């Protein structure tokens, strides 16, 4: 109980005088990920001092694994939010992806690779529909994807029950293709005493790819443009509709990816799982400096946001604190992260906002 007081210290300290910022420093501080990086370092140091068992490479990689399962989808969600839209179906689609693959193959006895491909197509279709409906109807994506969220949640349960007679998918570990798919999506290898899950590498790859697209390509400019000022973007010839639909499809692709990981790591899936994770992705993006209103943010920031979430949720366990307080700790840590983020960004009184 007295432990809970310990969360309060670790005040945001990078407060010097904001007046005399040289140009370089201002430019650094204006980057969306800097605030979250500072927060991540503070939280990291805090747990290093508070939780002895946190201080090992093994622990760090457990945290990275936890972060990667959130972070992979969060990359897509972050891009989408920079593009000015939400996707609330991103959490359940991971389960839909796994279930579609598992049950299709189990039912018809076909190779799991075929199921994985069909599942990918299905997910991309869902992403396409999300984007298409949002663009066609002009209804906010919050509502459209809320609809998709409920449809998928219901379909996950309904179809699973229909196919397997239960609300969990069946054992597919002895089917063709399981081992090779597991190697791609859910394998791990050891470096010294550390177990590295392949999702951590995939996560790094996706973050790098997203960062490159955002920073270095025309598509990246389009994403900032459609999120910051869609009307002006359209006026200067940015393909707004295509860009946004592509963003929705990116999210569902990454959702599919994590779904594949979950399926091939856990073999059977509970049809009700995945619900609630959509908010974790959004939280990761926002903690990482993405604006809820779109037009601002970047991939590294989102990755740091996911890392903060993973670190906080496991750091509490490593510290051995009373589990009843878990959510309260988590909330304090996330608030801290957001506050530090805001504070650091305020330090740079730059006018550079939307891209």
């Amino acid at each position, binding site marked *: 109980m007295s432990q809970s007081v310990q969360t309060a210290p670790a005040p945001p300290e990078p407060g010097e005088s904001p007046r005399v910022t040289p140009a370089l420093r201002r430019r650094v501080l204006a980057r969306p990920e800097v605030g979250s990086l500072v927060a991540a370092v503070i939280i990291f140091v805090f747990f290093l001092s508070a939780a002895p*068992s946190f201080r*090992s490479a*093994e*622990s760090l990689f*457990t*945290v990275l*694994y*936890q972060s990667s*399962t959130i972070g992979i989808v969060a990359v897509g969600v972050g891009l989408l939010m920079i593009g000015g839209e939400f996707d609330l179906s991103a959490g359940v689609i991971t389960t839909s992806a796994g279930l*579609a693959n598992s*049950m*299709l193959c189990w*039912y018809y006895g076909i190779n799991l690779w075929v199921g994985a491909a*069909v*599942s990918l*197509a*299905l997910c*991309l*279709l869902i992403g*396409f529909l999300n984007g298409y409906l949002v663009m066609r109807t002009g209804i906010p994506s919050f509502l459209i994807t809320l609809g998709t969220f409920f449809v998928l949640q219901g379909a*996950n*349960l309904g*179809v699973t*029950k*229909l*196919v397997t*007679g*239960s*609300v*969990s998918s069946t*054992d597919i570990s002895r089917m063709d293709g399981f081992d090779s798919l597991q190697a791609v999506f859910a394998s791990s290898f050891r470096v010294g005493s550390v*177990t590295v899950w392949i999702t951590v590498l995939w996560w790094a790859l996706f973050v790098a*790819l997203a960062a490159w*697209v955002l920073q270095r390509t025309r*598509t990246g400019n389009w994403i900032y443009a459609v999120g910051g000022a869609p009307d002006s973007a359209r006026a200067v010839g940015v393909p707004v509709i*295509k860009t946004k*639909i*592509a963003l929705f*499809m*990116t999210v569902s692709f990454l959702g599919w990816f994590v779904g594949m*990981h*979950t399926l091939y*790591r*856990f*073999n*059977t899936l*509970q049809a*009700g*799982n*995945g619900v*609630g*994770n959509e908010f974790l992705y959004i939280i990761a993006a926002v903690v990482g400096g993405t604006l809820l209103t779109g037009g601002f943010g970047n991939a590294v920031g989102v990755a740091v946001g996911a890392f903060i979430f993973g670190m906080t*949720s*496991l750091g509490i*366990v*490593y510290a051995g604190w009373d*589990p*009843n307080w*878990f*959510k309260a700790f988590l909330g304090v840590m996330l608030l801290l992260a957001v506050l530090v983020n805001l504070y650091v960004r305020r330090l740079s009184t730059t006018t550079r906002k939307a891209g």
Partner: protein
Amino acid sequence: MTTRRTAGVRLLAALAVVALSATACSGGGRQKADDGDTGGGNAPGSSGYTIAMITHETPGDTFWDKIRAGANQAAKDEGVILRYSNDPDAAKQAVLIQNAVDSRVSGIATTLVTPNALAGAVRTATNAGIPVVGFNSGIDQYRKLGALMYFGSDETLAGQTAGRRLGQAGAKHPLCVIQAAGSVALEARCAGVKSAVSGTENIQVNGADDAAVVATLQAKLSQDSSIDAIVTLGAPIAIDALKAMDSSGSKAKLVTFDLNAEAAQDIQDGKIDFSIDQQPYVQGYMAVTSLYLYLKNGNDIGGGKAVLTGPSFVDQSNIDKILPFTKNNTR
């Protein structure tokens, strides 16, 4: 990133439509996928009774599948029309009970997980002369609420028995894994374990995300290497716990509440020590059957006391017999 060309998008969409139709039509395939279970039974409603079953099921939990499988089988055996509805929210569950009263069913079987919130609705039913039977949860309060009979497990007793058994095996520091925050039944189980082994520690995990459960347990096991036993409160969590123990090289003993096909297999393989089964199939079956007997014959089951469907232990000694039943989704 993704396809930018319209043709590509169209092709993709077409492919996906094919995929969708392929998955959608799988309901009518070669497998016997109906949940009608075994046996012939009577025509639905041939007894003239309609029984409403109302639970606090959160959709997507295999445990409730078995309760429903039991209830469906009983309805079939006895020619009863069964109306099932559920809502994890107490206020909404009360409304569902009210709905059943309004539609003048012959009997109501309900879980009483939040007795105070449901008391009013149950009273409306008993005032209207509709017999009410409690099951699954509410063992201490069902009488007070006016329910006639009760079928379920005593969660505290189940926890104590499990704890005692762990204690006899030499466990000093068990970890009790709670997968849903704020559940009275889950807390009672862990409290029961703790009353038998005082070194018991609780941990909270997010049961809706397997990867998160594994990572959290892995973190806990490496934080505290003195943990010599893990108690999971649901079969899917036990499977996650096995993965976490594997990754962290923990030698702890694993026991779990409830069963599913995978956990049963792990018991046979010796990876899980034992399961504390509350026999949900029996709960569903008896809840309907007791109402049927009460309506038809005025019977009272349990001699004025709750009928315990658990704790029943499943371990190496009896798993060979039980394993096939778990695959049928009846155990």
